[in-house]
């Protein structure tokens, strides 16, 4: 019997190796191609041979999928010019080759500030390419379970996908905790309060708020199964539209408006969970995933 392998503790290449069918990952622009950042060297900063992201194709339960994995260890998975271009190229190639789906293993603090405008442009191009991929009828699944979470531009990219799968340990947001504290003061958000950070940006809150569609325990095999289930659910005849539709956007907008109306004045996720109707909200962080999903079933948003 194989034991659980922590998604959180694995690096990008270990995740690729364990998530997809054994030996099936075939990398585009591998490290030996040495397509590195043209900016970091000028700043006298270390480079990585893959610029912090591995892209390629693989098989997932036999299905031909395209995939990218960001390495959180290298500059927090931040998106520079080359890193972003690899993601864009992967998505375009997925459309050209009619992949069954794209699975993005997101772990990123957002734009790589060293590369400033080039990084910002790269992220916007990733968003456009992702929506083009959906428009071509190819579902995009995002997995978030690394210690750097999915923040900034990559938080937005994640929410452009058809399905976001998170673990409790994963985090998803626009501004990171330190950024909020710096901009609005420690009274607004204490970035050193780990429990507050996780109950605000962590997987359970995102699941309850409708920002992620599936939640799994911190296990690579659980992420694999969730990705397979998500692709199957999106490719059966009665599935919801893979391309973004006006109707879906209007539904999303209505859900967000409802969220603000119901919870906008509440200071802490604990209050939000109580208002939402979660029994014993203070116990939510302690729940194992299965009982949590059961408890969330009738109250979570976007279900």
């Amino acid at each position, binding site marked *: 019997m194989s034991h659980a392998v922590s998604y959180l503790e694995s*690096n*990008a*290449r270990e995740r690729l190796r364990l998530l997809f069918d054994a030996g099936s990952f075939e990398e585009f622009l*591998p*490290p*030996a191609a*040495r397509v590195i950042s043209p900016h970091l*060297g000028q700043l*006298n*900063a*270390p*480079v*990585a*041979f*893959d610029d*912090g992201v591995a892209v390629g194709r693989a098989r997932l339960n036999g299905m031909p999928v395209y995939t990218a994995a960001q*390495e959180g*260890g*290298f500059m927090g998975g931040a998106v520079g010019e080359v890193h972003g271009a690899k993601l864009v190229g992967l998505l375009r190639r997925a459309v050209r080759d009619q992949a069954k789906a794209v699975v993005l293993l997101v772990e990123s603090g957002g734009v790589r500030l060293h590369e400033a405008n080039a990084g910002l442009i790269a992220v916007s191009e990733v968003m456009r390419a992702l929506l083009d991929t959906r428009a071509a009828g190819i579902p995009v699944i995002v997995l978030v379970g690394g210690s750097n979470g999915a923040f900034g531009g990559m938080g937005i990219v994640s929410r452009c996908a058809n399905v976001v799968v998170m673990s409790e340990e994963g985090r998803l947001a626009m501004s990171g905790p330190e950024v909020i504290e710096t901009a609005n003061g420690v009274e607004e958000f204490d970035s050193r309060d780990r429990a507050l950070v996780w109950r605000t940006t962590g997987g359970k809150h995102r699941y309850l708020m409708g920002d992620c569609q599936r939640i799994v325990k911190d296990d690579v095999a659980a992420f694999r199964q969730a990705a397979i289930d998500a692709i199957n659910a999106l490719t059966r005849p009665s599935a919801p539209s893979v391309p973004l539709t006006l109707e879906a956007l209007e539904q999303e907008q209505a859900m967000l408006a409802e969220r603000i109306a119901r919870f906008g004045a509440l200071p802490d996720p604990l209050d939000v969970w109580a208002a939402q109707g979660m029994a014993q909200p203070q116990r939510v962080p302690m729940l194992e995933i299965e009982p949590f999903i059961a408890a969330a079933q009738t109250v979570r948003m976007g279900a």
Partner: protein
Amino acid sequence: METLNYRFEQGQRRLAQPPQVVGVVSSGNLEVLIEEAALNGACEIKISTAAVGFGPIWQAVMQDFQQRWQLADTRISINDMGATPAVVSLRLDQAVQTMLGEAP
């Protein structure tokens, strides 16, 4: 940043495998890219490190490594972000073991 180059002649062991990369460029860590290359029996190592001024220690670690493995026609490229000598040795061994299909 500092760049260091080493070349060890007359190795014994060839690694006829696709290139491999191990490790990550993060604080106290490094990535090692190992490739087969026609180098007339030599092993070439190129190091790009964020920690400047540790040339003699790198040389000692590389000599120990080459003594352990006696690599021939091998190119090793390293991006380092301040890894300790022990971590460097372990990563180098991991790189070779991965090439040999022996990595755990």
